[in-house]
């Protein structure tokens, strides 16, 4: 009798805990839905004419700066990260050096972004004597991105079956030819998935850019002389990004008209960008899974 009641009790507890886990799992999803919906609705309701314009009253310039900064940083971080990942997967032997590189990747990816931002401020601004500029910000984002691109490339290459290598080398290809013509093309979808997520992180980065990109944007859209500081494409001009703009709207919001609306709308754009980046990465990896199944 007693035994049966302990048994019943355990089963009761089990049901109860299962319920708790469903509540936790459900509330995490609910929290995201509420958060995202709130930000988007608040953003839409804050709309005012001219907000998407390329003037001081709008956020067009900041949006352009953000995209430009991410592109500049990817131009550097993608080749560097992919090369380092290739080295780790295809050339490096198990040993001290590989271990140190792996540890460096871990250390670099766990450093607070403000610390890397300060490093960038010291090296790219103070030591060069330059004014705040987009390129310095892009280099900081590059440092933040390299660990992830490297480890994604390494893992993607390691996941390829050895048949790819033996087959290619058997046909007389050299190691590098094998990497360049066989391995990299085979793992490109996975690497691109990683790069999309890295780009998403760069899109929303702000703490690291506080002291590198500058907190102003003065550009003249009719000026296409690259050397001029008001040319939109000059990477050496100050260029505040969208995420940084949200921060500025809070600290210096009182002097700018529509500051609350601007922060609301910028937040909405940042969240939508995250959703789009994630969706793109997800679709891409779903296609890889399908392809690998041979469908």
């Amino acid at each position, binding site marked *: 009798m007693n035994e049966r009641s302990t048994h019943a009790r355990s089963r009761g507890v089990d049901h109860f805990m299962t319920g708790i886990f469903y509540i*936790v799992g459900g509330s995490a999803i609910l929290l995201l839905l509420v958060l995202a919906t709130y930000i988007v609705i608040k953003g839409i309701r804050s709309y005012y004419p001219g907000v998407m314009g390329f003037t001081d009253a709008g956020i067009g310039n900041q949006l352009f700066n953000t995209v430009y900064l991410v592109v500049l940083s990817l131009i550097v971080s993608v080749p560097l990260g992919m090369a380092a990942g290739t080295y780790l997967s295809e050339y490096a032997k198990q040993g001290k050096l590989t271990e140190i590189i792996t540890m460096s990747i871990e250390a670099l990816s766990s450093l607070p972004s403000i610390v890397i931002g300060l490093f960038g401020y010291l090296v790219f601004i103070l030591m060069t004597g330059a004014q705040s500029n987009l390129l310095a910000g892009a280099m900081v984002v590059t440092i933040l991105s390299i660990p992830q691109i490297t480890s994604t490339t390494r893992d993607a290459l390691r996941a390829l079956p050895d048949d790819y290598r033996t087959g290619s080398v058997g046909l007389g290809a050299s190691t590098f030819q094998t990497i360049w013509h066989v391995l990299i093309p085979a793992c490109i979808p996975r690497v691109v998935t990683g790069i999309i997520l890295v780009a998403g992180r760069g899109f929303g980065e702000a703490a690291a850019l506080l002291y590198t990109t500058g907190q102003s944007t003065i550009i003249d859209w009719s000026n296409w002389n690259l050397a001029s500081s008001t040319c939109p494409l000059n990477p050496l001009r100050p260029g505040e990004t969208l995420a940084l703009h949200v921060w500025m709207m809070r600290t210096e919001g009182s002097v700018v008209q529509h500051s609350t609306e601007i922060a609301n709308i910028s937040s909405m754009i940042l969240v939508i960008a995250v959703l789009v980046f994630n969706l793109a990465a997800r679709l891409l990896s779903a296609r890889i899974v399908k392809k690998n199944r041979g469908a």
Partner: protein
Amino acid sequence: MTNKAASRQRKEKACKTLVMLCGLLIIALVIVIALFLVVNGSGTFIQYHHSVFEFLFSSDWDPSDTPGVGGGKVGALIYIVGTIYTCALALLIAVPFSLAAAIFLSEISPKFGARFLQPAIEIFVGIPSVVYGWVGMTVLVPFIAKKFHAPMGGYSVLAAGIVLAIMIMPTITTLSADALRSLPPRCKMGALGMGATRWQAIYTVQVPMAKSGVITGVILGLSRALGETLAVAMVIGKTRAFPKGILYPTNNLTAAIAADMGNTANGSEYNLALWSMALLLLILSLICIALIHLTLKKKKEY
């Protein structure tokens, strides 16, 4: 023919050297970053003759902002306590929640989890910290002010702790779920076979066995919380005082660096004290990495 072979070999070698250099570049980056922070961060102690003890354990903060002129006070205890307080609160909220979410993902409903919870968690990771900060400031802070009658209009340790908890939840959940999934099925089967309920199997067998993975997740989450800047800066109230409770405002290391670095003269006592705070953050994040390595080394293979 031999010429062609030789040129091919040269090319091979050049490519190998090139990718190796990129690998070495990562080591160099870490060393250079650490070196620069050590050089700048030690200025407080070498150039301005403050003791490390004063920096870590005194709360008198009044550094001078004229380059070359010292004599101020650089006690950063308030910022350090602010960081510890907010991170501890964040862990207190996030760890139980994340562990439950991880169990849900790996044990209770893997299908539903993979379809809905996993993507949700990935999106949580992607949301920029300024957005968390902005929502915290416009929703959470007024809510705390109204519900708990907090002084300073709701800017508080509590607000910072909640925002941080949401931000580190994905890290802890993902790593814990991975650890639970990687356990061999026989562990669970054994427990169930002996008549344990699912919950008994989870808390007596599976969670203890996945301990090292869970701890790794918690430490990684902690290191993320330690370095988080703008989201915390927007809700903490930036008041240089010890918080009297979780409803009171204070300040922390990252928010102080972000707010003041640009307003100090390069090389002044104030400036270098902020660099020392950045160095402290670097050391803390390296300690976190070392702890993770220790945890994984002690990990038992099942």
